[in-house]
């Protein structure tokens, strides 16, 4: 293997300072700085957008009062429960229809029909069914999570190279071995793509469900703050959602690094 050396007079510097890790943060930092300056000299009204420092202060205030923790835990609980319910249903049918042609014939077209209904359009109906309790929100989250998991599991299994499955026959694998040694590892990259979409959908659904009808959670905190014109708290809530979304995404990336390092989507070494 050849190593490529950068022609750089500051080559000693480039090896000492990890520029590649620093450069992506330059733009966001500059934007926040600009925002702070504009807010302080009064160009941006703090009713419209409070300064970053005010947002941080609001976050600290909410943390100290315990309010933030309460809302985040209840939101996270709804997200996790909804995800587990919808995710396991999607996984179950994805695997079943993926490996069994009769099951696919029976269930796939029905699932595809339901999938084409935007799940947020079901909110009025869901409120009629469950009222505005946690059941309604968990139901919506489960619905939002189910389909990405289902579709990507199903197609992940179907897209496996038939030559590899035939190798399983050559080695006399039984159905269970075939599944664990060829089908599951082969479908895993696609399943993780599904997981990532599902987690995105999970937060999105929860935000909408919590802002429309709730008496707790991050979404409620934001809507409540809006009534009292606490723009800083609204911004804290939005940033919280961004943070939680990023956290979910990073954990899937980590999972990919650990489980599918062999896949072309991953950089080796």
């Amino acid at each position, binding site marked *: 293997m050849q190593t490529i050396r950068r022609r750089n007079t500051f080559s000693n510097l480039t090896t000492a300072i990890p520029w590649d890790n620093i450069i992506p943060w330059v733009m966001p930092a500059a934007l926040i700085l600009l925002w702070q300056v504009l807010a302080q000299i009064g160009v941006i009204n703090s009713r419209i957008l409070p300064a970053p420092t005010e947002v941080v202060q609001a976050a600290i205030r909410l943390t100290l009062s315990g309010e933030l923790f309460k809302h985040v835990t209840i939101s996270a609980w709804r997200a996790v429960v909804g995800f587990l319910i919808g995710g396991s249903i999607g996984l179950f049918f994805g695997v079943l229809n993926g490996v069994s042609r009769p099951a696919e014939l029976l269930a796939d077209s029905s699932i595809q029909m339901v999938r084409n209904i935007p799940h947020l359009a079901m909110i009025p109906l869901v409120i009629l069914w469950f009222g505005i309790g946690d059941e309604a929100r968990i139901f919506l989250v489960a619905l939002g999570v189910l389909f990405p998991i289902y579709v990507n599991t199903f197609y992940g299994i179907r897209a496996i190279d038939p*030559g*590899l499955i035939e*190798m399983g026959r*050559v080695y006399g694998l039984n159905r269970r071995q075939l599944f664990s040694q*060829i089908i599951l*590892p082969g479908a895993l990259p696609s399943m993780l793509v599904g997981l990532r979409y599902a987690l995105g959908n999970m937060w999105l659904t929860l935000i909408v469900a919590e802002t429309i009808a709730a008496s707790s959670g991050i979404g409620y905190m934001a809507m409540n703050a809006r009534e009292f014109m606490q723009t800083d708290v609204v911004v804290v809530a939005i940033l919280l959602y961004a943070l939680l979304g990023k956290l979910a995404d990073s954990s899937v990336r980590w999972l990919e690094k650990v489980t*599918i390092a*062999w*896949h072309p989507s991953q950089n*080796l070494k």
Partner: protein
Amino acid sequence: MLYIENVHKQFDNGLLALEGIDLAIKPGEVVSLVGTSGCGKSTLLRIVAGLEFPTLGAALIDGEVITAPHPKVGLIFQEARLMPWLTVAENIQFGLKDLPRLEQQWRTEQVLQKVHLTNFAEALPRQLSGGMAQRVAIARALVTQPSMLLLDEPFSALDAFTRTQLQDHLLDIWAEDHPTLLLVTHDVEEALVLSDRIIVLRPHPGRIHRELAIELPRPRRRTSLEFQRLKEQLIGDLDLTPGLDLVKR
């Protein structure tokens, strides 16, 4: 000993792929099946591999009818068919799960040496070139110590230089343990370099048109006069007249 007795194969769509194939192959013999596309040569190989079943007749290994992939038969396909999530060594051990760990490792080292890939034991398939991947596929087939190797156009996806190299390499491997080799190819030169006997099949339906014993000493020179003469004869047997299909219809 491999016997193919009166094998017919009709596909579900009614197409008659093979008709009345009779063939006996001695242990250690190198036999090539050649023919234009649609002559049923791959189907015949897949029947011997236990991956397809004849409509009529049977294929037998050591007196037993083949009903499933045989543990003493190694298979090599046109594509390497390596599990992309396993390292080279793990791929080779895929068919050895029943053996003790140490035996698996020892055998893996042995076959990796044979295909000159010792340094790539921990590599992933995506890090290999086409020729290297195919060598891993050969190693994986050899590791079960088969008495017969079935090869379905094993080198046709490779560039000309790599192909020649691997043909010679296959002969080296064969010279060591003399496994029976049954090879499907559409490359006349490949068949001539490798085989003791060449079976020419013709399509619609697939039948044996001719058997040709090749008695040239090994290693064979691809440029010798005798080699060229046989090549010409084989090409004649293959019936490659352009446009013939159109005339017949």
